[in-house]
């Protein structure tokens, strides 16, 4: 490398301002309000959960969203390319840990979208050359993951586009080296989203209440993990993740939210799951019940009330 000029960001700013430049140097790329909503459905015939994702970029975002990483770390070693799971892209990933949860990947347009699994075991998706970066105030859906694993809460990281910086940096003389160059990772937005999880009994909340214990497993939850949930001030919604027992009778399922019937928002199926976002308006009570068959052959009813306290 040729002789390097050591230039600090402040010095650059001073130089450009002195030269008449008025643009703010390395503008922030905040995208902290970005969320990933997920609609979970269950294909009983294939015993496959489908996770349909939508990236929601709020109008407060200061940069487009390039894509996201979703944690798929699991607990058990499995064959990574599962032929029973659908893909519409060419899968080239083969370096991830064997304990990564295997998934199928379906993108809106395989010609534009790139997706796969990182060597660290994270699902990634982005659009080629930033063609479908999600601007502030927009949403991008059509991203589907298939898995044999039920839903749980996973970590998701959204990446901002750094294009706003590139023009500034590229204008610097060849050989310029910044001591602390701007790093897009400083603006990665990390949150949680629904995704396939490698769960054991200990990871579920049964809702409590019924005897024998097997009846309590007709309805289990990975969110919430208690029947009384204290929510942060200002919370307006909550996503309940419910897993249905394998012997439930779907037609007996009922759901009310603070007394209002919302049964239709759920899709009960033996062995299936739902992730349903409910509005929070003051103290909110969600009541779910379903009948199922016990191992003895008799019937039982699992009835749970979940209380959300804003």
């Amino acid at each position: 490398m040729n002789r390097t000029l050591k230039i600090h960001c402040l010095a650059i700013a001073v130089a450009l301002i002195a030269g008449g430049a008025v643009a703010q140097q390395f503008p922030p790329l905040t995208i902290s309000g970005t969320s990933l909503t997920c609609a979970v459905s269950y294909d009983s015939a294939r015993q496959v959960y489908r996770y349909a994702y939508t990236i929601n970029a709020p109008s407060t975002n200061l940069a487009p969203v390039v894509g996201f990483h979703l944690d798929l770390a699991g607990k058990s070693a499995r064959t990574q390319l599962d032929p029973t799971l659908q893909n519409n892209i060419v899968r080239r990933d083969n370096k991830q840990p064997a304990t990564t949860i295997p998934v199928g990947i379906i993108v809106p347009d395989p010609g534009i979208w790139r997706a796969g699994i990182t060597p660290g075991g994270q699902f990634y998706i982005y659009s080629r050359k930033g063609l479908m970066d999600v601007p502030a105030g927009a949403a991008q859906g059509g991203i589907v993951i298939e898995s044999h694993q039920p839903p749980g809460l996973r970590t998701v990281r959204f990446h901002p586009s750094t294009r706003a910086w590139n023009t500034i940096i590229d204008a610097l003389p060849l050989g310029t080296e910044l001591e602390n160059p701007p790093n897009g990772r400083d603006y990665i937005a990390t949150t949680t989203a629904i995704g396939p999880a490698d769960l054991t009994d200990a990871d579920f909340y049964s809702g409590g209440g019924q005897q024998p214990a097997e009846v309590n497993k007709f309805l289990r939850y990975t969110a919430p993990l208690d029947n009384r949930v204290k929510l942060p001030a200002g919370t307006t919604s909550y996503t309940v993740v419910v897993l249905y027992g394998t012997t439930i009778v779907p037609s007996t399922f009922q759901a009310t939210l603070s007394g209002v019937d919302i049964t239709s928002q759920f899709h009960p199926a033996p062995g299936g799951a739902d992730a349903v976002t409910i509005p929070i308006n003051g103290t909110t009570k969600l009541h779910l019940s379903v009948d199922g068959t016990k191992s003895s052959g008799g019937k039982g009813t699992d009835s749970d009330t979940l209380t959300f306290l804003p």
Partner: protein
Amino acid sequence: MSKPLVVAVLAVCAIASIAAADEKPDRGTFKTRPGSTTQYQVPKAQAEGEAAQSGRPHMAPNYAAVQQPQLMRYRSESDYPDYNRGFNGSGLAVAENGIARRSDWAIGIQTGTIRGGGCFPSNVNDDSSPCLTEAVAGGGTRTIYKERERWIFRISYIDPSVSNAAERNIGFPGIFAGLEGDDMLDYVRTTERGHSCFGFYIYYCDTYGIDLDYITGSVRAFKPDCTMKTAAGYKAQIFYQFSRYKSTDTIPPGATEWEPATIPATTTRLEQPGRVIWTRNFQLGVGENALSISGAGIVNPSVESNTAYNTVAPTIAAGTSTVTVSSFDCVAIPNVAFTITRELLDKAGHDHVAANDPPLDEVNSLASYSGTTDSTGRWTTTLTAGRIAGSNSYKATAPNLLGQPFTTSAYVATTGFTGMIDPGVGTLDTDIRYTGNTEGSGLNHPGNHYGSPELHQFVREMATMYQIEADPADRGSLGLNDMSIILGGLFDIDGNWSPSHFRHRFGTDCDIDRRVLGPSGLVFLDQDTLQNIVEMNLDGIFLHEGGNRMHVQVPEYMVGDILLREAR
């Protein structure tokens, strides 16, 4: 029975057992007995059973038949000769009144060629006297030959601080503990089957019909221990005797079997078996590590600038180590005052065109450079790494260690990330090229493509994916510019020991050229595609640098593993 006789009997027993095995010894080597340190080097011709040139007759007494006798100190077992492997040893010769160390693995007498045979002198005390002749019946004379010869090797000690102190034999070990004594080599002019041969080899001389009139080397040694005084008064000697009589002869009344005659032992002196043909007086000194300095060999340099790994290691703390100065020689030597000196030993990849040295503190430093050992003979301080890779050498010097000045062996402390590699660009690595300073000489940093294995794998995967994802017109081999120098640490491009290349410190970063080399030459790289590959496909770090160049770093989750290996 005197000690020499004990040794002789043991040697005979050993030879008998070897004879029973009916195997010829390895070429060129013979050990006299199990547990012995004695080895003889037999000439190649005899060892291979060839008819060797006989040494007979030597028409001179041959007193000076031991060539190059030396008192040697062997600091470790690996220094001791192993003639069987063609190794003549790497001991250190001790001069007259010189010092051997109590820490030595062994101290011994090593020789070159020893030759047997020759006529019996007319004056047994005169080397230059003519051969003895005697009249024979019927007229005429016959020359008398030495029928037997023997060389006795001895190391003894007389305590000079005690008047009339008794001389004590301290070498060489027998097969039984506590039977330290002389070591003897003997020679016979005529064996039962008519061959001339050294005693340890008679079975083979007679079995294979060969003569062995000389050996090309010999060694025997003892191991000093803590019971031996560190003082003068030690002496190594070689005695020599010869006899005109065979062992089966009857010694005529009034005749002396061995010449020169053995002087019997007294209450304060050992017997003297014949004439002393070589002597070396020496002292036994304290062990080489009577004063020592030690600590970790490697510590990692500090990285004070932002690494971009904000969670795992935004900066890297300097490695540290406890450095100990110990005064101990068989027992603790308390209260030894000393000072520590430091000098630069290696610049670890910095080959600055302006051949200057780094500030030594920027390599590594001690919290204190002088002290006094405590009652247990210990003193400690802390070594702290700087930000520049390299090696400093530390030595402690005591002006008075048991009455003598003493300087330790060097303790070398290397600052660096030592697990980095440069695998080079192989013929199959068609997706990458090394660029930047690649000439290898005449540069400030000839090796600038060192990195963690994770980084080398990362850039290869990145380059492979780029060939898949980029538009055909944008494809080509990626130019990999600077990574880290050999042991990492400060990468001062200008060779002035000041920071630049702020993140190229521990093998996680690589600069990428702005143009790829495609089929039609250099074309600009598609930065958007590469950025997505680095950040999304590989979860790494991608930074734009001035002039359209780029900088990539391995994923943060890899850095924990790298630092587990490298931080010390």
